[in-house]
Each structure stands twice: as structure tokens, then as C-alpha cells.
């Protein structure tokens, strides 16, 4: 079974702190994604990566950066946390589409981040 793990289920940080959210997958997936989930807004893509050291902006990248030094690990960084970044953060991974056929995404359990 594919396993996507996230470093913390709950995290409380102060405004202005630098925050690291870690995600690890164990199925050798090329693609990894970071989403934030807010009530009524669904899942919104922050950043994704389709290879080591490669990254692409998603729909809401402002205030975030990412790092992918190893294939299995994808980190989300909040350089200076703000209260409007209080949210549930979900990591996901998938294989690269083959011959145009997309693959499903496997999600981690999420990190509920509160910025005070």
C-alpha cells in the first residue's frame, strides 16, 4: 500500500515564525503536491513537483516555498507565518502519467496548522 506521511498532525506557531511541513512517500512516485484545505474552498494547490529539485507554482503559491532534495520527500516552507495561513495542509503523491493516462493521487493525513 502507498503510504504518504506528514511530520505533524497538529502544529501551533506564532506570527512571523518560519514553519516547515514535511511530507514523505514510500512508493517511488515522481509527482508530489501540497494543498491547503479550507471550509467551503475545497483543496487548493500551493506547489507541486514532478521531479527532484523541480517545482511548479500552483494556484495559491504566495507566502510559501517548497523544497525537494530527495524523491521521497517534499517540504513546504512558510517563510514568515501569518494568521491567514491557518489551515489544514495536505500532501499528496502520484506517478507520472503514462501514455497520457493520469494516475490517482495518494494523500497524507494532513497537518492542521494554527498561526497565532
Amino acid at each position, binding site marked *: 500500500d502507498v503510504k504518504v506521511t506528514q511530520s505533524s498532525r497538529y502544529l501551533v506557531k506564532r506570527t512571523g515564525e518560519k514553519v516547515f511541513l514535511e511530507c514523505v512517500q514510500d512508493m517511488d512516485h515522481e509527482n508530489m503536491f501540497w494543498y491547503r484545505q479550507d471550509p467551503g474552498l475545497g483543496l*487548493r*494547490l500551493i506547489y507541486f513537483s514532478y521531479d527532484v529539485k523541480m517545482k511548479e507554482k*500552483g494556484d495559491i503559491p504566495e507566502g510559501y516555498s517548497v523544497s525537494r532534495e530527495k524523491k521521497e520527500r517534499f517540504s513546504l516552507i512558510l517563510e514568515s507565518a501569518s494568521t491567514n495561513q491557518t489551515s489544514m495542509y*495536505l500532501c499528496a503523491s502520484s506517478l507520472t502519467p503514462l501514455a497520457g493516462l493520469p494516475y*490517482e493521487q495518494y*494523500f497524507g493525513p494532513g497537518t492542521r496548522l494554527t498561526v497565532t
Partner: protein
Amino acid sequence: QQPVQSPQAVILREGEDAVINCSSSKALYSVHWYRQKHGEAPIFLMILLKGGEQKGHDKISASFNEKKQQSSLYLTASQLSYSGTYFCGTEMRGAQKLVFGQGTRLTINP
């Protein structure tokens, strides 16, 4: 731009049917459906790839009308275990990323 799901919420009794719609303003290559139970990770249900394609397993099926840029998820004879929030994720050709709808909360009562 996020696809629009409707309805936003629905409450059913066990055994009733439900339809959840997903509509996009952009040309779509594929539509993915996921279900998320409270406090858990979203779980993959199915991918629809071609225009007019229909898929299903057990009593959950879906259709994808490529021309209308719409997909519908059908839950037949709903079970208590079907409760949760359903998300559609839409993909444009070559994008390798999904844009998710805002979700539809489905509650099944005994």
C-alpha cells in the same frame, strides 16, 4: 479557476440515491473523484478520461461529458459508509495537476 460542484450539501436516508455534479469553465482532459471522511485523508474513487466515458464500481458510478465540461457522480442505494465530502478534481491536457472543486458534503442517515 475551480470547478463548481453542486449541490454543496445533501442529506439522504440509507437506500436513497444521490447525484453530485461537477462543472468547469475550461476544456477538460480528465476528471477525478475523491471522498474524504471527517478527519481523514481524501481517498481516490475513480478517474474519467474520455468524453462520454462512464465508470463505476459497486454502487458508485460517474460520467464525463467532455463537450459540456461536466462530470456527475452517481451513488445508488446509498449506504452509511458513503457519508463524507466528495471532491471532483479536473485536469487540462498536459497539466499534470488537478484543480479541485469546493466539495459536496453527503450525509447518510439510517
